[in-house]
């Protein structure tokens, strides 16, 4: 499972990095006489409603997906880890405040808050990143807080405290590293979630705006052509599903590898 996940994600990352440069077609160049043309040897994924090469757009879209996934996950994981560690280690009022904010944000199911935020802020990639980060950090904070509560009473942490180490040192050197394996698993699965989130918002018309080739925007464009050109829908969706499946394989594999109970 882990190997399959690594292979899929690596392949997708290489395709996103080098694919657009190797493609003979510009992802936004239009060839209107050939609009909606079915897949051929020259255009293996066919052409879209404006005669743009779908393979070139899928490869360019991969860059957007990776950018969104990596940005959202790195900011969410950093903010969530910091707030979760602080809440768990210090407890008291700080823990209460962070805990209540987490409770309120978790009261909004899944993408709903992201939809609401983008609805009022306006559709754009920046706002999508902002909205997905706002809902993203909560999971990490909860996870790290739980881990810190477990670790802070362990002997090695108490020993560090006894020799006079300050709270930032203990958190950074002893407590947070203990939570890292769980954070890495969450980040891998969270990257898939962020990619689906961006695609969902773009599909609803609330994310990346045309002519930028986001996979969700491409699927939205394909809706009007389900009858006459299903390839507009098939290929961008396949790209999302394969990449997210790879990330889920990777996350599940990492979880099994880092959890002795599971691997047993």
């Amino acid at each position: 499972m882990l190997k399959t996940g690594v292979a899929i994600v690596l392949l997708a990352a290489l395709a996103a990095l080098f694919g657009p440069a190797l493609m003979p077609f510009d992802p936004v160049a239009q060839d209107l006489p050939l609009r909606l043309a079915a897949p051929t040897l020259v255009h293996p994924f066919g052409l879209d409603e404006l005669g743009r090469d779908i393979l070139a757009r899928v490869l360019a879209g991969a860059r957007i997906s990776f950018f969104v996934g990596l940005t959202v996950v790195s900011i969410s994981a950093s903010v969530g880890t910091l707030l979760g560690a602080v809440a768990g280690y210090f407890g008291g009022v700080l823990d209460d405040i962070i805990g209540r904010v987490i409770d309120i944000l978790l009261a909004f199911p899944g993408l709903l808050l992201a939809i609401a935020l983008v609805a009022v802020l306006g559709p754009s990639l920046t706002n999508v990143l902002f909205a997905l980060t706002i809902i993203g950090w909560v999971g990490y904070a909860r996870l790290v807080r739980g881990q810190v509560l477990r670790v802070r009473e362990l002997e090695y942490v108490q020993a560090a405290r006894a020799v006079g180490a300050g709270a930032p040192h203990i958190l950074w050197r002893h407590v947070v590293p203990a939570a890292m394996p769980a954070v890495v698993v969450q980040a891998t699965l969270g990257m898939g979630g962020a990619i689906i989130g961006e695609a969902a918002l773009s599909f609803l018309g609330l994310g990346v705006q045309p002519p930028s080739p986001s996979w969700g925007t491409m699927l939205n464009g394909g809706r009007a052509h389900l009858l006459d050109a299903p390839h507009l829908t098939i290929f961008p969706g396949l790209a999302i599903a394969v990449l997210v499946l790879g990330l889920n394989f990777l996350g599940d594999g990492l979880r099994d590898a880092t959890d002795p109970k599971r691997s047993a």
Partner: protein
Amino acid sequence: MTAFFVRRLLLTIPVLLGVTTLVFSLIHLVPGDPVQAMLGESASPQDVAELRGRLGLDRPLYAQYGAFLKGLGIGNLGASLRTNQSVTSAIAERMPATAELAAAAMAFAILLAIPLGVIAAVKAGTSVDHAATTVALIGISVPGFWLGPLLAIVFAVELGWLPVSGRGTLAHLVLPAITLGAPLAAVLARMTRASVVEELRELYVLAARARGASRVRAVMRHAFRNSLIPIVTVLGLQFGAVLTGAVITETIFSWPGVGRLLIQSISFRDYPLVQGCILLIAVTYVAVNLLTDLVYGFLDPRIRYR
């Protein structure tokens, strides 16, 4: 038991207050002037002033918040900017469609996932288990906004068996329910498998077998029954995903529910209606979570004493 219920109910109050405050704040997050954004750049100053007064945005923030909470208390969420219909009645009109879709999706997920999960658990480690686990992981990875159109291409366009959009007959419900239910089925199947595998390792299952209970009876009467508590919990927690998924599924299949109303309201910048839809979905989710916790506490006495 009563103490647990009361404590859980009391804990919900600050969450609900936080949710309503956040929903109230949404309109104030609109960049620039929200009224100008709603009416467009070409709107006259008189129109802008009139709408600002109608929405109460010309009053101090605390007064606006007080009026919002008071309105909530009596079920008054204002009126749609586009149709002037009351937000409450616009949402009430759409709610049966969303409830019907969510119920059908959950029924589909339960009927598919639980047998699949139990079979995978009983056959753990075999190729049947690997196949079921992989199918479940694929189910989680395939987004509804792709699965829906794919199903429409195959069953509506190519085969012509089912209608592609709208609501009315049972046939209209099939594709949206499968689209919305598939990811839930995938999560539920994984949970059922994990839970039944865990229970099958317990001594009481071995004891049942030793007393002469058949393998099927040991699984169904003993292991599966005890696995139900975590399964019910996951079902409750996944209800949120169903609600958000409904927004996308209703958009794909032109299903006239609250989710589609939300997306339509966003495109018309009809903020009172947007606020109403978001609030309804979030409050429903909080209520279902509360109910799940209460049921969990009822089923498993250990929870009550934590």
